[in-house]
């Protein structure tokens, strides 16, 4: 059976938290991505289907959803990689409230990046000379390893700790914090360590590694969180975790 002549049976989540699956038949194409399938449904079968996307090339992080029960970026996921018997099941990301169909409310996800002090705070102004950062310094290598996060929330949706402890900051926020505590230009490090310590922070992580396994950018939030655990524990034992935050 050639790919182009076959048909995909696609179950798509419709409605809010109390919704259900609706089945669509979509023509199978070569090199078809899961996002292509969703777009086909919205364009040709049901214009009321809600979903998010922007760049279509794996940069913006907006198209993530659950494909056959696994959170993925759909623009870079080929149907041929995830399809069993020409069937697909598409659902919104878990661990986030559903707005409608495949769209989730991501306030909690982005709010936690702010709560983990994921914002860079520098001491210099535009009138100061550029700071020199050695690219091969150990701290900069740690920061570089986690810097390519696109904020797609695949890790957050895959994290079991988030599902049973909703206040947990989650892998993306903690990974972001880890890149900043390793940024030598940043001056908010002590307050950031205090923000990510504790039961809602890095110490709740069970090191199951789902985030690292599912990250479409092949980042390792598990390693970042392990680094934060060590750094915050050391700071707590030295009494350095009780520092006033820098206000700018």
């Amino acid at each position, binding site marked *: 059976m050639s790919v182009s002549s076959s048909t995909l049976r696609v179950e798509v989540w419709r409605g809010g938290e109390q919704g259900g699956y609706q089945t669509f038949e979509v023509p199978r194409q070569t090199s078809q991505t899961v996002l292509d399938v969703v777009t086909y449904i919205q364009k040709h079968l049901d214009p009321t289907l809600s979903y998010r996307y922007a760049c279509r090339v794996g940069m913006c992080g907006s198209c993530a959803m659950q494909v056959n029960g696994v959170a993925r970026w759909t623009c870079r996921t080929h149907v041929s990689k995830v399809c069993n018997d020409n069937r697909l099941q598409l659902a919104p990301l878990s661990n986030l409230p559903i707005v409608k169909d495949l769209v989730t409310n991501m306030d909690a996800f982005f709010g936690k990046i702010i709560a983990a002090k994921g914002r860079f705070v520098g001491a210099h102004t535009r009138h100061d000379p550029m700071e020199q950062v050695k690219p091969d310094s150990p701290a900069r290598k740690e920061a570089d390893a986690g810097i390519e996060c696109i904020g797609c929330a695949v890790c957050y949706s895959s994290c079991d700790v988030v599902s049973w402890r909703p206040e947990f900051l989650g892998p993306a926020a903690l990974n972001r914090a880890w890149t900043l505590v390793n940024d030598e230009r940043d001056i908010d490090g002590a307050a950031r360590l205090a923000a990510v310590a504790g039961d809602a922070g890095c*110490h709740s992580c069970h090191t199951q590694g789902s985030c690292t396994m599912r990250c479409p950018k092949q980042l390792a939030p598990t390693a970042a969180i392990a680094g934060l*655990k060590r750094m915050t524990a050391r700071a707590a034992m030295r009494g350095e*975790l009780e520092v006033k935050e820098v206000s700018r």
Partner: protein
Amino acid sequence: MNQSAVKAARRWYWQRITAMGMALFVVIHIAVMVYAMNGGLSASEILGRTQGSFLWALFYGVFVVLVSVHASIGLRNTLVEWLRMSGKAAGVLGNLIALLLLVLGLRAVWAVTFGSL
């Protein structure tokens, strides 16, 4: 500053330190048992060796302390996550269990070292 976060970070530290200690103690414990029991030993023969052995009491006394600290922190986390207890209630219960383990363990060490046959 957020005191509960500081305490959580310290708990994590002590749980890891005690885990490292216990890893060493468990290896020594098992190695000695395998070596000593190789030919088969009766209860009175075992007690004959442990009675009055300060080194034995010290080893297992420290072991009991490590277990009590480690288990109480782990149980606190388990109670919070599985039974959705508050951190405070789980902390109190964890400490009580630590005390129980400490008393039971040290009593056993005392009995095997200094108790009468």
